[in-house]
């Protein structure tokens, strides 16, 4: 453990001096009293902002600093509603003024470029550094463009991923607006595990909603790296009900697995080279891994994700670093905004208890993932998680997906609850 932290200290800072190696006498003592401790939170998304707010709520005198490079955060959840044309970017964009002005969190607009775990400091792009007693990292995802021949990260300017919301969301929306009636929209859907398991399928639902109204001769093709997907039965039921045969989903083993993308020709080569699918608008959602900073600090495993103690979300690599959200390996909990929100609370409780010399508790939390098939047709998957036998596990007999074959009024109520969920959780996260 000690050698490991030494190594990633060196990796993150590129320092090789003897002084750094011996780390002479400059490490701070951990505050024994939670009230005096300083916690630095890296990343102001669903996990990080929640952790910061709940640390202050559980321990009002604690010093909490949130480091986030952007002035606002655009949620990936809800971004399909913008792409579908019935919500605005403003409605999914959140600022940090409540955290800063009302919750007493020191919000710094800067980017973390290195972590010195031995000396418990983070280095910022501006050149400043911050000392911490506990570090919470919620770095989200980055993409594995190397896994797909023919396309690289810079090509996202032509073929958007739109899987980190913001400019990419607007780009995909404007490409759909420019697409001719009778055009073909192609989504290349990612392999597991990835952020927001039902997200790609909500997206094609709501693109179909837009096209049906404005460009009804158009076609949607999903080329999937998987043979099944979240809430599949409910999505397919809804697609048939609302969009007839507009959406064609191809499973990996049925010609859906894409081997190469030709960016210039706007084609995806699939089915062992037998099929070249041409797109007017293409949405390539790459395979994913933990956000880059988690790799730079040396917290990731061979698969590119961050292993943690699933009781506290403390990194397996360092005793003072907690990692949550999409980047973490969290047992049965999906990579969802709601999971990140729950994990932010779990981490806040774990840190406060540890600083008070109290034993960790076995957390339990609830997750709900709503999706819209039309603006009035909502479906959901729910689960209750409990920490048991060393992992976050779903409680047997609880949770599951919305019933199939339900009435339109049931679907309308779930669509209304989808919006209530969004309003509630974003207030919980950003105040």
């Amino acid at each position, binding site marked *: 453990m000690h050698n490991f932290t030494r190594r990633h200290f060196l990796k993150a800072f590129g320092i090789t001096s003897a002084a750094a190696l011996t780390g002479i006498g400059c490490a701070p003592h951990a505050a024994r009293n939670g009230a005096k401790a300083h916690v630095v939170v890296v990343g102001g998304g669903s996990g990080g902002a929640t952790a910061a707010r709940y640390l202050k709520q559980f321990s009002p005198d604690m010093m909490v600093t949130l480091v986030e490079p952007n002035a606002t955060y655009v949620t990936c959840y809800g971004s399909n509603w913008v792409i579908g044309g019935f919500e605005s970017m403003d409605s999914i964009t959140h600022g940090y003024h409540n955290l800063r002005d009302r919750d007493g969190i020191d919000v710094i607009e800067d980017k973390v470029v290195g972590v010195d775990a031995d000396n418990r400091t983070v280095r910022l792009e501006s050149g400043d550094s911050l000392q911490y007693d506990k570090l919470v990292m919620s770095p989200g995802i980055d993409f594995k463009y190397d896994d797909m021949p023919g396309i690289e990260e810079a090509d996202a300017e032509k073929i958007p991923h739109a899987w980190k919301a913001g400019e990419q969301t607007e780009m995909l929306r404007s490409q759909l607006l420019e697409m001719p009636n009778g055009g073909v929209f192609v989504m290349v859907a990612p392999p597991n595990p990835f952020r927001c398991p039902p997200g790609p399928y909500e997206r094609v639902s709501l693109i179909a909603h837009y096209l049906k109204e404005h460009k009804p001769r158009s076609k949607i093709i999903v080329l999937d790296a998987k043979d099944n997907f979240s809430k599949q039965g409910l999505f397919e039921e809804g697609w048939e009900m609302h969009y007839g045969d507009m959406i064609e989903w191809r499973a990996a083993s049925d010609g859906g697995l894409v081997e190469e993308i030709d960016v210039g020709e706007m084609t995806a080569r699939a089915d062992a080279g037998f099929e070249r699918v041409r797109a007017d608008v293409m949405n390539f959602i790459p395979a994913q891994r933990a956000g880059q900073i988690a790799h730079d600090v040396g917290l990731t495993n061979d698969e590119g994700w961050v292993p943690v103690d699933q009781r506290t979300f403390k990194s397996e690599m360092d005793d003072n670093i907690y990692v949550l959200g999409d980047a973490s390996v969290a047992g049965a909990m999906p990579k969802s905004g709601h999971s990140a929100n729950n994990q932010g*609370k779990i981490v806040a409780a774990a840190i406060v208890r540890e600083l*008070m010399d109290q034993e960790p508790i*076995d957390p*339990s939390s609830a997750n709900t993932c709503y999706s819209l098939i039309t603006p009035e047709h909502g479906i959901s998957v729910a689960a209750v998680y409990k920490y048991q036998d060393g992992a976050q596990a779903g409680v047997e007999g609880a949770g599951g997906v919305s019933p199939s074959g339900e009435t339109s009024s049931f679907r309308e109520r*779930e669509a209304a*609850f989808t919006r*209530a*969920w969004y309003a509630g959780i974003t207030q919980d996260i950003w105040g």
Partner: protein
Amino acid sequence: MKQSRLFVAGLVASLAMVGTTSQAIADNDEITRGQLMAASCKACHNAAGAEKGVPDLGRISPEVIQSQMRAFRDGDRDATIMDRHAKGYTDEEIEAMSVYFARF
């Protein structure tokens, strides 16, 4: 009659807790498992959710929360999703979380 007595009992319990609010979440108090479970529910069941039709549990008494969670769980009350959530909790867990909502 039964319903309204339950409501009054809950209201009294809620009012009684107001005086202890700041202490309950002060840093020298212990964060409990029930409190963390209640925090999870608050993602939907808060003031913003209430504006769009989801009850704000901070305004509902522990007794009513307990009876309604059991009703959802045991199939005595219809729901779109709360039946699926409620099945994940024991009576003891429902009781443990129910007392915290008014304190957040």
